């Protein structure tokens, strides 16, 4: 029983950490490209901004799904209901 809880805690931590890593790197690259494009052609900034937010939402999707599953493990652990 304790090992299930311990491994769930570890799993939640790894999920959130790796998700944050991926999201951070991806959004950093996205933002830097946007700023570069905005510096080259300021008149395109509104259009680029819309596209950037769209890409931001898509890049953020899987890390946030990982966070949601980690929260599920932390607060309503399905593995515990399976064994008890």
């Amino acid at each position, binding site marked *: 029983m304790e090992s299930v809880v311990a491994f769930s805690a570890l799993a939640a931590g790894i999920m959130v950490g790796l998700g944050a890593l991926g999201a951070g790197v991806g959004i950093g690259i996205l933002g830097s490209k946007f700023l570069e494009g905005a510096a080259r052609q300021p008149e395109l900034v509104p259009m680029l901004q819309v596209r950037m*937010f*769209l890409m*931001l*939402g*898509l890049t*953020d*999707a*899987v890390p*946030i*799904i*990982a*966070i*949601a599953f980690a*929260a599920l493990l932390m*607060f*309503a652990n399905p593995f515990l*209901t399976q064994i008890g």
Partner: protein
Amino acid sequence: MSAGTPAEYIAHHIQNLTFGQHADGSWGIAHSAKEATEMGFFAINLDTMFWSIATGVAFCWLFRIAAVRASVHHPSRLQSVVEMLVEMVNTSVKDAFSGNNPLIAPLALTIFVWVFLMNLMDLVPVDVVPQLAHLMGIEYMKMVSTTDVNATFGMSLSIFALMIYYGIKVKGPLGFFGEFATHPFGKALFPINLALETVSMIAKPLSLSLRLFGNMFAGELVFVLIAALIPFYLQWMLAVPWAIFHILVITLQAYIFMMLTIVYLSQSHEIHDSH
């Protein structure tokens, strides 16, 4: 409803009002998370149904008022807001949709405004509505329908059904299923094409619904955590920045859901002549 520990408070606030058949055969509302899972697949989350229908009715009613009382020379403020939204959706559909289908723009407008309104319920302070519901005898009440996986999967599976329907209608059954075999590599690599296309076809509704669910659930969970773990006179310090960030997330997720719907349906309408 002052639960003992923070864990109980949090578990209480993420539990839906589930109606179904109990383990002993009687029908009723679940009184705990364990009872709710025992009810199985065919249990309905009443609070999700109520709030999603209420926000949908509010959207239709508001927009109908704006349309019926529309005036060219003296537009009201509601009419101006509705016009801005319709224009934004119209521009998005024109940019992203390459077929000819009068359903897409109203569908996109419905998705955007409805998802936005459902998400907006998250900005109401955590305890207000559950406390009122508790005074009326209702044990659990979650206002944000999009934090329920059932709601988001319902929407994305409907979009998936539309994708398949229009795919078969525009390309013909042979063309639609033929695409599974011939995209993206060519007829020779048929098994690889099949595997890739099947995975991407399944990934679309799954990612669509889980993206919205994950964002909204995480947002709501942070509000509940702030309410559970921070003393009440300090809660505003964390809750205000998070709420401001959450306004962006709400609008963004509604917009992304709409754009992806338009793009997926546009892909179902495309006929690849030579590939």
